[in-house]
């Protein structure tokens, strides 16, 4: 093998058997096209999904226009389709779940990110959280029906309201349990990233551990924690199986957070197989489009807020 520096300053490596330079170029080209190709494919898939959804929902878009989003009646028998009860159901269950989950996920993030970074205890909690993230949602639904719903029902009896058990409240609790691992793991990571020298500075000024967490760690990590929460909200919005099993599949506007209701994902899953005519099917698909849009909008809002909160 020899190395020559030619007059135009290019280094050519050659050897008896292999031409490195040619192989390099070929490899690089293949690599580049694979990367570009995958990128383009992703774009095509997303556009493709969106376009086909829009196309298939054209009949109901034409038929109902904006009334589809504002209408509160969902009655396949009379071919009247208004999606507001599902939009409301989705938003209420998701945000309620978020509200329930936030204190727990922040507590777990702090516990694992700052209090017990290493050790058996933290390892155990970490694997439990990971385990929780891996439980199939049908199992959550099952557990909810047999364990959670009776408790909620008792609770509703105590409150003196109609004791359905199933409904928004039960679904939100299950959703909260399902999304805690996501926001907690993101939260833990960002809390671990808080530079130790600013924590040292705070300790050197007499701050206690609690004060360091409250006034140094959390302000520093807040955008990341928020990102985790948005991520988990995205999951809550689209969660189908567990919610379907617990929400009561009641196609009217929810009257309270204890009432049965229905969500966008659930109504699609439940009614798609029985949608016997085109307008029905296309209405369900339009709900899919709306869910797509709601998730995207919430994600964008999240990103925007994170950008504004980032520490710089």
């Amino acid at each position: 093998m020899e190395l020559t520096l030619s007059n135009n300053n290019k280094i050519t490596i050659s050897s008896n058997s292999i031409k490195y330079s040619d192989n390099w170029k070929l490899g690089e080209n293949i690599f580049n096209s694979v990367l570009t190709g995958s990128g383009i494919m992703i774009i095509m898939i997303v556009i493709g999904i969106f376009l086909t959804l829009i196309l298939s929902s054209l009949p109901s878009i034409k038929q109902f226009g904006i009334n589809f989003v504002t209408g509160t009646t969902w009655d396949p028998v009379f071919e009247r389709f208004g999606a507001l009860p599902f939009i409301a159901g989705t938003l209420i269950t998701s945000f309620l779940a978020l509200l329930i989950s936030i204190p727990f996920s922040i507590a777990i993030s702090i516990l694992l990110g700052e209090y017990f970074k290493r050790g058996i205890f933290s390892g155990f909690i970490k694997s439990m959280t990971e385990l929780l993230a891996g439980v199939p949602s049908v199992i959550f639904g099952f557990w909810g029906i047999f364990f959670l719903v009776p408790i909620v029902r008792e609770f509703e009896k105590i409150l003196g309201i109609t004791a359905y058990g199933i409904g928004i409240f039960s679904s939100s609790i299950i959703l909260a349990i399902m999304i805690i691992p996501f926001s907690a793991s993101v939260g833990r990571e960002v809390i671990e990233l808080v530079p130790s020298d600013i924590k040292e500075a705070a300790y050197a000024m007499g701050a206690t551990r609690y004060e360091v967490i409250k006034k140094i760690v959390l302000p520093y990590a807040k955008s990341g924690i928020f990102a985790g929460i948005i991520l988990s909200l995205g999951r809550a919005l689209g969660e189908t199986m567990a919610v379907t099993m617990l929400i009561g599949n009641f196609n009217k506007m929810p009257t309270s957070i204890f009432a049965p209701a229905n969500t966008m994902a659930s109504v699609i899953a439940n009614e798609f197989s029985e949608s016997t005519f085109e307008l029905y099917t296309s209405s369900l698909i339009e709900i899919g489009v709306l869910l797509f849009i709601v998730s995207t909008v919430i994600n964008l809002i999240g990103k925007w807020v994170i950008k504004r909160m980032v520490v710089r």
Partner: protein
Amino acid sequence: MENQILTTENLFAHYGDIDTIKNVNVSFPKNSITAIMGPSGCGKTTFLRCLNRMHELTPNAGSRGKIILHDEDLNKLEPIEVRRKIGMVFQRPNPFPTMTIYDNVIAGYKLNGIRKKRIEFDHIVEDSLKKAGLWEEVKNNLHKKGSFLSGGQQQRLCIARALAVNPEIILMDEPTSALDPIATKIIEELIVELKNTVTVIMVTHNLAQAGRVSDYTAFFYLGDLLEFGQTEKVFTNPKNEITEKFLTGKIG
């Protein structure tokens, strides 16, 4: 010697089972600047962190012996109180990135939940920034985050932050080693001025800096305090052979 502010008696410090500081007895005179010198790993940082009880925050670390501030045993005071009386400036400037310049200066109060009137805080901020020689440069940007400041300005902000709680002693661990020569010069001049209000104990690797700034020099070697005395004397006429080797660059 008269007018000692801080004294250690048979001070030992350890990480795990290993003694890193061995039986140090030293007295720091009030309103003086002491340079702590010695080869890398000899325990300078560890010693400094004992003095405001930061050392005990490190897992598996601890210390024995006595540290006396005026005539009080540091171990009998609350850590909060110790750290209000004995401030610290670190090697890398570490202002709080989430806080404005103003809030950084009064962080010592905010962190400990001490409330004061706005006008009092205004006064503390101006006073501390002036003492740290930063006021003119930041007075129009007090309510911006400190992250746009240069490294040297950030370090002076950290000094202002330490000064704001009126400490009696400020510990500095190589406060200029992350700075360029000009910023270093500014900080050195500042340290000399600080002598009027506080006692400074600083670790430095820079012989010339110790010579320019300090009144006293403490020389550590493998955890032992080999020599302590007036800088002039230690530099021109070291009692210990190892100190001399260090000063002439034969070890280090």
